[in-house]
C-alpha cells in the first residue's frame, strides 16, 4: 500500500552557496586542528575512557580530549547519511535523504501565550500536550522538538518523563526532546518509548523518539547530556548535539571563526557516538549567532544568524550527515514585523543550502514564549519558503508558447485550460490577509494574527490525534513511579 506523505517537506531546486568548496575545506581543516591541538572538554569519565581507548589523548584533570584527525575521519565516516525519524503513525515518518528539508517545532520555552486569554503565563504539562496537538494537525510540522515548553508543574527529576507522556498524548509524529540530560532519565525515557514499538529492537528499527543535546561552547560538552546520548548510541537511537556559539562571547567575533567552533562542538560528540556504536544514526545540530553588542545578550535573530544558519549545512554536507539547524525562533516578543523579518530570513537561508531540519516553529522572545499563533504563522513562512526554494521550472509546457500565441495581444489567460492546469501551483495563503481594504475594516481589521488565532482554536477543539494503545498510560505510570523512587533526592 502506498504510504501517503502526510508531512510537507521541501526539495529545493535553487542552487545557493554561502561558502565555496575551498572555504568549506578550510573550515573543516581548522576544526581538525582545534580538535587535535586544543581539544574539547568531555566532562564524563565514561566518555573520556572511550575516547582514550580509541586513540584520543585525554587529560583527566581538565577532562579535555584531543582528537587526532585520523580518529575523527575514521569514525565520522561510519555515520549513516540517510535514515528515518519514525512517527508512531508511519505516515509521519521523516526520511532524511540529503535532499529534503523538514520543519520541526522549536522549544523549550517556559511561558505560554494563552490562546484564550492572551495572558503570558508559566507553562504546564497540559501546554506541552496542547502544543503537540496543534503540531500534530499542521502538515508543515515534520516532528516535535523540544518539547515546545517545559512542564513546570511536574517534579524536576521526572519532568522529561512527564513531557514524553504529554507529547505522546498530543501527537503521533516523531518526538525529539532536548531535555533528557542524564543517563538514568535517558534509560527511563527509552523504556517508555519502547513500550510503543514492541521493545528496544523495535525502537531501533523505528525510532519514534530521539535525543538532541546542547553543547557548552566553546570547545565543551555537558557531562549528563553526553551520558544520556551515549545510551541512545548504544541502542542505535538517533542523537545529535547542538552548539549555539555566540560571536564575541562563546565564539570568535568573526563568523568564519564561529563556524570553526560550531563544527568542533557539533562534530566531536558524534565521533564519540560512532566509537560507541559504529553506524549509529547521528545528526549535526547548531544555532550559531552573535551577541547583542550593547548588552551581550542572546538576540534570537540577525544577519549573523541567517548567514551562519545557511552556511553550516555546507560543512555538514562535507561530512555527509544531516543537520538540524536553529531557524525561526525570533527574538521578537510578539508575532510582529520583527518576528516576520527574522523568521523569513532564518528559514530561507538554511533551506536554500538544503538543510535537512529547521528547528523550528512556534516560539517568541528567543525561544522563551510558546505561541499557537506564531506556530501557525511560522508554518505559513515555511510554505512560502517551499514555493521559493522549488524555483521556476522552464520547459516546453511552462514556456507556454502555445497558449501565448493563442491568447494573442490584449487577450487574457483566465479561462484557458493551461491556466486551470497549472494554477494550483500558485501559492495560496492560509493566514496572510489579502482582503480588500473596506472589507478588512468592516471585519474589525482582522489580520494574520487573528486568522491564526481562529485556526488554533479550531484545531484545539476538533483535532483528535492517534490515541495511545490501551494500558500504555498505566505502564507509563509504573515506570514513572519507579523512576521517582530511584531519582528522587539525587542530582
Amino acid at each position: 500500500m502506498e504510504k501517503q506523505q502526510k508531512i510537507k517537506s521541501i526539495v529545493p531546486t535553487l542552487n545557493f552557496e554561502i561558502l565555496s568548496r575551498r572555504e568549506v575545506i578550510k573550515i573543516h581543516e581548522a576544526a581538525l586542528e582545534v580538535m587535535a591541538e586544543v581539544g574539547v572538554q568531555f566532562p564524563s569519565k565514561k566518555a573520556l575512557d572511550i575516547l582514550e581507548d580509541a586513540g584520543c589523548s585525554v587529560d583527566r584533570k581538565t577532562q579535555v580530549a584531543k582528537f587526532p584527525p585520523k580518529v575523527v575521519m575514521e569514525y565520522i565516516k561510519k555515520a549513516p547519511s540517510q535514515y528515518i525519524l519514525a512517527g508512531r503513525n508511519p505516515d509521519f515518518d521523516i526520511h532524511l535523504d540529503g535532499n529534503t528539508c523538514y520543519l520541526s517545532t522549536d522549544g523549550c520555552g517556559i511561558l505560554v501565550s494563552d490562546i484564550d486569554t492572551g495572558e503570558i503565563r508559566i507553562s504546564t504539562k497540559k501546554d506541552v500536550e496542547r502544543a503537540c496537538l496543534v503540531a500534530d494537525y499542521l502538515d508543515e510540522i515534520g516532528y516535535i522538538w523540544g518539547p515546545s515548553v517545559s512542564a513546570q508543574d511536574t517534579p524536576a527529576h521526572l519532568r522529561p518523563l512527564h513531557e514524553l507522556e504529554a507529547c505522546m498524548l498530543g501527537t503521533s509524529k516523531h518526538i525529539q526532546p532536548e531535555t533528557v540530560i542524564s543517563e538514568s532519565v535517558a534509560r527511563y525515557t527509552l523504556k517508555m518509548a519502547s513500550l510503543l514499538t514492541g521493545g528496544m529492537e523495535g525502537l531501533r528499527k523505528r525510532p519514534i523518539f530521539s535525543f538532541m543535546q546542547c553543547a557548552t561552547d566553546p570547545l565543551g560538552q555537558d557531562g549528563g547530556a553526553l551520558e544520556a546520548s551515549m545510551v541512545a548510541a548504544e541502542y542505535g537511537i538517533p542523537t545529535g548535539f547542538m552548539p549555539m556559539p555566540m560571536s564575541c562571547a562563546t565564539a570568535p567575533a568573526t563568523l568564519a571563526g564561529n563556524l570553526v567552533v560550531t563544527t568542533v562542538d557539533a562534530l566531536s560528540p558524534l565521533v564519540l557516538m560512532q566509537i560507541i556504536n559504529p553506524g549509529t544514526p547521528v545528526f549535526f545540530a547548531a544555532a550559531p549567532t552573535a551577541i547583542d553588542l550593547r548588552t551581550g545578550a542572546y538576540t534570537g535573530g540577525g544577519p549573523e544568524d541567517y548567514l551562519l544558519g545557511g552556511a553550516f549545512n555546507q560543512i555538514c554536507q562535507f561530512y555527509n550527515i544531516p543537520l538540524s539547524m536553529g531557524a525561526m525562533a525570533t527574538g521578537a516578543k510578539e508575532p510582529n514585523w520583527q518576528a516576520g523579518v527574522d523568521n523569513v530570513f532564518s528559514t530561507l537561508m538554511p533551506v536554500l543550502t538544503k538543510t535537512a531540519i529547521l528547528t523550528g516553529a512556534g516560539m517568541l522572545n528567543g525561544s522563551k514564549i510558546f505561541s499557537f499563533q506564531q506556530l501557525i504563522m511560522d508554518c505559513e513562512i515555511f510554505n512560502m519558503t517551499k514555493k521559493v526554494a522549488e524555483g521556476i521550472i522552464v520547459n516546453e509546457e511552462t514556456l507556454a508558447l502555445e497558449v501565448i500565441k493563442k491568447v494573442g495581444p490584449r487577450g487574457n489567460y483566465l479561462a484557458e485550460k493551461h491556466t486551470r492546469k497549472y494554477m494550483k501551483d500558485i501559492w495560496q495563503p492560509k493566514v496572510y490577509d489579502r482582503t480588500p481594504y473596506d472589507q478588512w475594516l468592516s471585519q474589525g481589521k482582522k489580520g494574520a494574527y487573528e486568522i491564526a488565532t481562529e485556526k488554533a482554536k479550531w484545531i484545539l477543539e476538533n483535532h483528535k490525534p492517534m490515541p495511545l494503545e490501551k494500558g500504555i498510560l498505566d505502564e507509563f505510570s509504573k515506570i514513572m513511579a519507579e523512576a521517582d523512587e530511584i531519582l528522587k533526592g539525587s542530582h
Partner: protein
Amino acid sequence: MDKEKIFEKMQLSILEGEPELSRELAEKAVNSGISPLECLNNGFLKGIEEVGKLYAKGDYFLPELVASAEAMKSALELLDPILKEQKTERKVLGKVVIGTVLDDIHDIGKSIVASMLVANGYEVYDLGVNVKASDFIDKVQEVKADVLGLSALLTTTMPQQKLVIEELQKSGIRDKVKVIVGGAPVTQSWAQEIGADGFAEDAIGAVALLKNLL
C-alpha cells in the same frame, strides 16, 4: 615620570582593556612610593568611570566593558593585598558574590554580569559554575557580601536558587545579604515566589537593580 603622566597611563590601560599593562603600572607605581589608594582614585578608577560614560553614550560596547573590567581586576589583584596590609579601605559600591548554581554549568551570562559589576565599582567574587549552596553561604560570610547573585539556565536547576535562600535563612544571615537571581528561565514571579530581593533580565538590568537595592 611625573605622577600625572603615570595616572594617565593607568586610565588608558583600563580604557584599552590591557590587564598586563595595568598590573605592571600598578606594580611600578607602588614600588616607586605612590600609594595604592592614589593609584586607584586618580588612575584606574578614573579609567573605569570614563568607560562607564562611554558605554552610556553608546561609544563603548560590551566586549570593551569586559576587557576594561579585566584590566581593573588585574590592577586590583596587585593593589588590594597591599591596601589590606595597610588596613586601608577603598571605596566600593558594594561586595557581590556571584555564581551559577549546582548542576548547572552555563556561565557566559553570569560572567558578563560579574564584569559589568566590576566595571561599575563593585567588588565581585565569582565562584564559577556548579556551586553548592554551602559554598555560596561560606563565601558570603567570609567576605561579608552585600549581594549574592545566583544564575541558572535550566528550569531543573532553578530550584537551587530557592534552596540557597532557604539555607541563608537557616544560617540566620538572610537579612544580612540581598539575593538577586537571573538566567534565561528565571522570571519576576519566580523571584518573588522564592523570596529573592530582585531579578534582572540582563547585565545592565543587574547594575540598575543593585543601585536600587543598596
